[in-house]
């Protein structure tokens, strides 16, 4: 499990995990609940856009914790130019 390459990167894994867990702690919301919220929001978004590559994340920006929805428009353009 801990190969030579892996061993150098565990610190980066830890930083990512800590950033995520602290964002949720500060927002006082359980990560699993945001997961459910993400699913629900994506369901709604999909009704209006063919938004395959969309993501919804909790992020820390300076002192505030924000919910970020990322709905790429390229996907839609690609869809629109597809021959029918």
């Amino acid at each position, binding site marked *: 499990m801990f190969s030579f390459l892996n061993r150098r990167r*565990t610190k980066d894994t830890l930083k990512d*995990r800590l950033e*995520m867990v602290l964002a949720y702690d500060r927002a*006082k919301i359980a*990560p*699993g609940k945001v997961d459910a919220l993400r699913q629900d929001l994506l369901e709604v978004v999909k009704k209006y856009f063919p938004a395959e590559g969309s993501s919804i994340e909790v992020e820390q920006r300076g002192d505030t914790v924000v919910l970020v929805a990322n709905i790429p428009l390229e996907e839609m353009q690609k869809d629109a130019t597809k021959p029918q």
Partner: protein
Amino acid sequence: MNAKVIVVTSGKGGVGKTTTTANIGAALAKLGEKTVVIDVDVGLRNLDVVMGLESRVVFDLIDVIEGKCRLQQALIRDKRVENLYLLPASQTRDKDALDPEIFKTAVQQLLDEEGFDRILIDSPAGIESGFRTAAAPAQGALVVVNPEVSSVRDADRIIGLLEAQQVTEINLVINRLRPKMVASGNMLSEADVLEILGIKPIGIIPEDEGILVSTNVGEPAVLGKTVAGMAFMDTARRLRGENIPFPKLEEDNGFMGRLRRLFGGK
């Protein structure tokens, strides 16, 4: 140990309670016992991150107790090990939100309704209400101790308090032992700890960088091949009544040492 409900405690903070809970829990599950590890450190939960299950927390112990969800909904199943579950603590409440008697009822429910073979309770540091609540449902205890002055002193105090709370099966886990320092006479040996505390250790875990690496990525060390991981696995086997001799500990520096352990280290 006959006790199905075991509290993992130490008095002193930072000696490895949470790491011990995660690893013994994962080891017991690997050995086939349906196991749940419970975080009772309300307000300062960490068992979720040590086990790498933090992103899957939806409900917690306090939600269960306040009737906001069913017990089953708060249980997180570990996908890496069959039979392993986590019941997380609340991060937004404080220790007063958990009443010992109500906690006892919830633990009983885990035994009766969910059919768990073993329940490990990760106690908060200290000897106050948090510790007393954690110990309330337990018949057994794993006292985690580092071979240094303040930890041994606190362990002795906690052993007295456990006995007063009718916790009858008390076992010692010596954590972070440094064989080289023991050999040079600059660290207490297992025999010294036994002499001082009067309790035989059920596990001796050497200081191991592999523990930090495994917690970095959120994977209990018993799932990998570290020296400490193997020592935790041996501890779990002894806990189940197997007669596992203590291996001769040596510093984990050289390649040869690791090789030797790989082939004959059991």
